[in-house]
């Protein structure tokens, strides 16, 4: 099949990109051809094959749509959606950016990465050049030439004996030959955030494999050492992404996005306070540890996400039925509180103040604080680690809508809430739980106590 005509847009090391006119009313198009001439990189064709395989299987707003593929006299080609948006490379050129801006951009990138992982794909080459931001703030991932689909042959991994990836952002486990850990993408998001926040590269841009291996034992300078105005929460998030061992990083990109959307709720550890890199003793210890470390058994990205669910628990701080609270906690324990990557968000919805009182900020603040204290007290018997628990209090006249909006915005996997059997509110608002069950995109567990009320 002959490719549609286009005008040359970009000539990269691996491929040429052409803009193709689209019929009126249809999405703009981009034609991609691998460089196959003598002297081109041997990875060009494999990357192209991989992209064709993977792009054809992906859907959603965070990837360009594959429209057609074929071969003609000039070689193989792919026709895909041309994303209108600013490249993250342009933003990286403006770095350092303000903390809020970094959180917004990296949060958008993390949401895109999570959506990719959900579809069983790991990108493995996340860098500013491969990320675009649509006008509505949605990030789009492009170039799947080094990506890995857990259920398709890994052509790239079979082709190259040496790990493939950019020296700037390749993760320690990729260097060890592991191409099946979705947390490699979380590492690359950490590199991206570091770059946007400080304007510097955490590990430089090493070309040799030996130089890349330094990141298996040497940590980067803490971002606040380079940009002292940076808030501690951002350093906490960045350094957690850049942990050497995947288990110490954010379990999912969604949890990173969630934290960046609520920076004031990030529990600060010694990462936030760090002023300099680890001392020589720690480096030597890590260096010794880096040897003989077996790669963990690969799980599919979707399988990995299943072990790191985000549960949203609706807690009514005003509800004094201890039996219902205990039934909810029991449901949470059954929902695998032991999962190492679990995140539980307790959400309390406050009814709006009666007219005339809403203008008193002091009253507003104390109500909010009291609700947070009540939530923390509620969660105490669960014994969750600080990084697994988040609290959220919101004022809303319509609790069901508030819960649904929060769940959709923060990639919640399951909503757990109590049935309000005889609440006076129910008569006015209808059942919150039945609306959440009907309208949520994720699973919902409605908990009742064993006691029956007349």
């Amino acid at each position, binding site marked *: 099949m002959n490719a549609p005509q286009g005008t040359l847009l970009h000539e990269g090391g691996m491929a040429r990109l052409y803009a193709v006119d689209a019929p009126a009313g249809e999405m703009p198009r981009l034609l991609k051809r691998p460089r196959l001439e003598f002297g081109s990189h*041997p990875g060009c*064709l494999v990357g192209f*094959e991989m992209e*064709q*395989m993977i792009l*054809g299987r992906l859907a959603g707003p965070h990837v360009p749509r594959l429209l057609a593929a074929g*071969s003609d006299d000039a070689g*193989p080609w792919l026709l895909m959606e041309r994303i209108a948006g600013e490249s993250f490379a342009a933003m990286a050129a403006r770095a350092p950016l303000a903390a809020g801006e970094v959180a917004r951009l990296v949060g958008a990138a993390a949401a895109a990465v999570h959506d990719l992982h959900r579809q069983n794909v790991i990108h493995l080459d996340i860098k500013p050049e491969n990320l675009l931001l649509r006008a509505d703030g949605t990030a789009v991932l492009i170039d799947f030439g080094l990506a890995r689909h857990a*259920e*398709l*042959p890994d*052509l790239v991994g*079979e*082709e190259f004996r040496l790990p493939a990836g950019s020296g700037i952002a390749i993760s320690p486990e990729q260097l060890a030959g592991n191409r099946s850990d979705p947390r490699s993408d979380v590492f690359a998001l950490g590199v991206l955030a570091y770059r946007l926040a400080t304007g510097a590269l955490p590990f430089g841009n090493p070309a040799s494999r030996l130089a890349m291996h330094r990141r298996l034992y040497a940590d980067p300078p803490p971002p606040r050492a380079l940009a002292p105005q940076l808030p501690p929460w951002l350093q906490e998030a960045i350094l957690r992404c850049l942990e050497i061992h995947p288990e110490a990083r954010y379990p999912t990109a969604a949890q990173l996005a969630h934290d960046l959307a609520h920076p004031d709720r990030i529990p600060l550890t010694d990462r936030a306070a760090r002023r300099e890199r680890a001392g020589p003793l720690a480096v030597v210890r890590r260096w010794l540890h880096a040897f003989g470390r077996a790669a963990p058994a690969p799980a599919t990205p979707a399988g990995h996400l299943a072990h790191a669910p985000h549960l949203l628990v609706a807690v009514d701080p005003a509800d004094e039925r201890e039996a219902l609270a205990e039934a909810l906690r029991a449901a949470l324990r059954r929902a695998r509180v032991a999962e190492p990557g679990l995140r539980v968000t307790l959400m309390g919805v406050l009814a709006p103040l009666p007219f005339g009182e809403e203008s008193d900020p002091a009253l507003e603040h104390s109500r909010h604080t009291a609700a947070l204290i009540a939530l923390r007290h509620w969660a105490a018997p669960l014994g969750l680690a600080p990084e697994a628990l988040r609290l959220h209090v919101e004022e809303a006249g319509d609790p069901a809508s508030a819960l649904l909006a929060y769940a959709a915005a923060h990639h919640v996997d399951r909503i757990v809430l109590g049935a309000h059997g005889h609440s006076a509110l129910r008569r006015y608002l209808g059942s919150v739980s039945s609306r959440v069950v009907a309208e949520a995109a994720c699973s919902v567990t409605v908990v009742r106590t064993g006691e029956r009320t007349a």
Partner: protein
Amino acid sequence: MRTALLADIHSNLEALEACLAHARRRGAGRFAFLGDLVGYGADPLACLDIIAGMVEEGALALRGNHDEACLGGQLEAMHFAARDAIYWTRERLGPRHREFLAGLPLIHEEGERCFAHAGMDQPGRWIYASDAHTVARSFEASAARLFFTGHVHEPQLYFSMPAGLPRPFRPVPGVAVPLSEFRRWFVIVGSAGQPRDGNPAACYALYDEAAGTLTHHRVPYDCEAAAQKILAAGLPERLAWRLRSGT
């Protein structure tokens, strides 16, 4: 056009019917039986009647080592249970069924595709394509791009590399694998009638020519009924329980 590929049916009528129904629901317009239609199971005649009827309507069927063994000759290469089942089957085949089996080709090539029961380098020697070296020899024996075989009983794909030996890939049931046109692919279809990879569900593959994809499917079927028939026929007990366990 979608082609259903069934290998190693081994006289298992319940598995054959379940796979055919599953493939038809998924739009299979053509059927290829990759050898070992009989042996092991208790329903050789019913299976051959179905397959011979489909061959008359354009389906492709190939001869496997168990089919050949049922026609006569020494059976030294076979283990006892297989041998007992061959003797049992021989007694039941009439002239019509023997003639059908004798008329089956060992290898069939059409366009970029090559079909056989086992390795294509020496058809009739029943080479197990159990590693990259044997697959590489099949690649050398034919100019085809897509190779479809059975014989191994466990589903597996191999794809060619620009340099070096072909690489294996274990297909995930239900997931369509794009057979990249820049490579050659050696497809080992898992067994329909006697799965051995620990999953007792019948196995077959669907090749979608337009999309260029291959999907392995697992179809649960009444393996208990098939096992009971084996016991009732007086065939070796082991042949019954391996259907239940898929080993």
